[in-house]
C-alpha cells in the first residue's frame, strides 16, 4: 500500500500549509502559507522592476541634466533612488491588495497574523528589516574584501551568519522571514480563480449509466483528478484516463472518451456527494467505502 501512503502523505503536506483563519462570521478561510519558492520569485520580479525603474529614471535625469546644465538632477536622482528602494515595497503593500507587483504575479499577499487588519506600521517594520536581510550578506562580503586583514574563513563565517538571518524563512514552518516575525505578518496564497462552467450539468452526462459496483471503486481524490482532466480537454490525457477506468471496471471500449468520462464523472460525483450529505467522506480509492 505504498500508493495509499503516498496519497495520505501528500494530503498531510497540503494540510500542513493551511492555517486556520476564522472570520467574524465564523467561517474558516483556510489560508495557505506561500512557499519559499514563490516568495523568492516575487522578490526577484520586484528587484528587476526596481532596477528597470531606476534605469529609466537615470536616463531621464541624465537627459534633463545634460539639457539643463545643472546638478539638481543629481539630487533628484539620489533622493529618488533612495525613496524607490525603501518605499517600493511599503507603498505597494499599503494598497488594498497588500502585494507588490511581484507578489501579485505570484498570487500571494501579506496578511496580519492575528487576523486583524494589516496596519501601516506592520508593513513599515517588515520592509525596513528587509534592508538588513538583503544587504547584510553583501555588506559582510564587501567588508571582507575591503579589509585585507580579514581572512577568507572569517569572511565566510560572517557571510554564513548573515545568511542564516536572510534565509530565516526556510527554518520555520510558517515561512516567516525576519521581518514577518517582527511585524506579526504572514504571506499567504491569494490567487484569483476563475469560475469554470459546471461540467456536471452537461447534456452528455446521461448518455450511459453505471452500476453501483462500477462507481464504488473510486473516492474524492480520483474524482477531482478526473475533473481536472475533463476541464483540461487534452484528448491524449482523456484517452489514458478513460482506458484506465475502463480496465478497472471491466468495460469494453464502445463510446467516445469524453462521453464516457463525463457520464462517469457525473454519476461518481452524485454518488460521493450523496454519501457526503450522510457524513461519509471517502478521501481516495484506498479508503473503505
Amino acid at each position, binding site marked *: 500500500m505504498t500508493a495509499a501512503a503516498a496519497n495520505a502523505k501528500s494530503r498531510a503536506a497540503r494540510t500542513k500549509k493551511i492555517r486556520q483563519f476564522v*472570520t*467574524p*462570521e465564523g*467561517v474558516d*478561510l*483556510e*489560508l495557505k502559507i506561500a512557499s519559499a519558492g514563490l516568495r523568492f520569485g516575487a522578490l526577484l520580479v520586484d528587484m528587476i522592476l526596481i532596477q528597470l525603474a531606476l534605469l529609466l529614471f537615470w536616463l531621464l535625469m541624465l537627459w534633463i541634466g545634460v539639457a539643463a546644465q545643472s*546638478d*539638481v538632477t*543629481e*539630487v533628484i536622482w*539620489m*533622493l529618488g*533612488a*533612495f525613496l524607490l528602494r*525603501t518605499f517600493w515595497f511599503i507603498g505597494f503593500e499599503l494598497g*488594498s*491588495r*497588500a502585494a507588490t507587483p511581484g507578489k501579485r504575479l505570484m498570487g500571494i499577499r501579506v*496578511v496580519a*497574523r*492575528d487576523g486583524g*487588519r*494589516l*496596519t*501601516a*506600521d*506592520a508593513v*513599515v*517594520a*517588515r520592509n*525596513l*528589516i528587509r*534592508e*538588513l*536581510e538583503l544587504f547584510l550578506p553583501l555588506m559582510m562580503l564587501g567588508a571582507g574584501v575591503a579589509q585585507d586583514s580579514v581572512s577568507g574563513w572569517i569572511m565566510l563565517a560572517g557571510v554564513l551568519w548573515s545568511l542564516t538571518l536572510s534565509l530565516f524563512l526556510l527554518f520555520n514552518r510558517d515561512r516567516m522571514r525576519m521581518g514577518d*516575525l*517582527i*511585524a*506579526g505578518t504572514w504571506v499567504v496564497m*491569494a*490567487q*484569483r*480563480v476563475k*469560475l*469554470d*462552467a*459546471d461540467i*456536471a*450539468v452537461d447534456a452528455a452526462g446521461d448518455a450511459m449509466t453505471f452500476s453501483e459496483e462500477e462507481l464504488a471503486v473510486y473516492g474524492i481524490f480520483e*474524482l*477531482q483528478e478526473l*475533473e*481536472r482532466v475533463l*476541464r483540461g480537454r487534452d484528448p491524449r490525457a482523456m484517452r489514458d484516463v478513460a482506458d484506465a477506468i475502463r480496465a478497472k471496471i471491466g468495460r469494453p471500449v464502445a463510446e467516445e472518451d469524453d462521453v464516457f468520462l463525463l457520464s462517469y464523472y457525473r454519476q461518481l*460525483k*452524485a454518488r460521493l*456527494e450523496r454519501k*457526503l*450529505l450522510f457524513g461519509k467522506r471517502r478521501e481516495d480509492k484506498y479508503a473503505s467505502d
Partner: protein
Amino acid sequence: MIPPAASTRAIDAPSFSTSRFRAEREADWIAFDLLLTRLEKKGAAALTSDELLQLPLLYRATLSSLSIARATSLDKALLDHLEALSIRGYFLVYGVRETRLNRLRRFFLYDWPAAVRSVWKETLIISLIILLGAMTSYSLVSSNPEWYFNFVDEEMSGGRDPRATAEFLQSTLGHGKAAADKGESGLHVFATYLFTHNSQVSILSFALGFAFGIPTMMLEYYQGIGLGAMMAIFSAKGLGFDFGGWLFIHGTTELFAAALSGAAGLRIGGAVVFPGARGRLQAAADAGRTAGKVMVGVILMLFAAGLLEGFGRQLITDTMLRYAIGSLMLLFWLAYYYIPRREDVT
C-alpha cells in the same frame, strides 16, 4: 452567466443537488466578483451607495455559499473559486477603514509622538551609550592623541587629525579663507548624500535590534566614539566651542534620530529577551509595530538633519547662530514628542 438551458435543467434535477445549489447562487458570486474588481481598481469612490450597501450582503452570501459548498460539493473548481473569492472579499471588506489622508494626519498628530514617547526608556539608554562612547574616546584621545587613529578612518577624517594645524581645522568648520573659496555649489548634492547615508545606517541599527539589541548598542557606541575623538582634536586646538556650533546645528536632530533608531531596535531586542506574559512571537510583533512607527519618524528627522547639515551649516557660519538653530530644533523635537496631549482614542 450560465446558459438558460443548463439552469432550467439544473433546477429540474431532483431534490438537493450541488448543481442546483450553484445555479441558484451563481449570480451573487458573479456580482460580488465584479464589485470587488471595481473596488480594487478604483477604490470605494467608484461605487454608488447602493453598491456599497450591497457589498456586505454579497460578502456574507458568498461566505455562506462557501460553507455549504465545503459540506456538500466535490466540484474542485467551484470550491477553489469560492475560497479565493471569500479571501479576497474578507480583506477588502475588513481591510481598510481609513483614507490615506486620514491615516497620514493621525500619524503626524498622534501615532508618531506616541510611539516615540513609548520608547523613552530605550531612548535614554541609547543616549547614555552614545555619550559613554563619546566620553571614552574623548578622554583617551585627550591623554594620548595616537588613539585617534584607532577610532576614526583616514577617509572619514579628511585630514582632521592630531597633526593638523589650527588654521586647517578652523577652515573645516566653515570659517576663514579656505572655506570661502569652496563656494556654495554642490551643497544640495552633499545634503542628499548625507541624508541617504544616514538613513541607511539608522535602518541598519534598527534592523539589527532583534539580535537582543546588542549589535544596535555596539553601533551606537561606535557612533559616539567617532564623535568624541573628533571633539578631542578640536578642543586640543582651542576650537571646542566652534566645533560645538558646527556640530550642534544639525547634530541635535541627527543624534536624536540616531538615538531613536537605536531605541527602536532595542525595543525589539528587549521584547525578544523579556517577552513578559505574552508569547515571544507576539511580544516581538507588538514591539515591531511601535518600532516601525518610530522608524518612519526617524527617516523624516534625518531628512531635516540632512537639510540642516547640507545647507544650514554651510551657509550659516556664525557660531552663535548655529547654536541657536540647533537648540531651537532640539526644543522643537522635545516639545513635539514629549508634551502631553489628548490622545486619539478612536
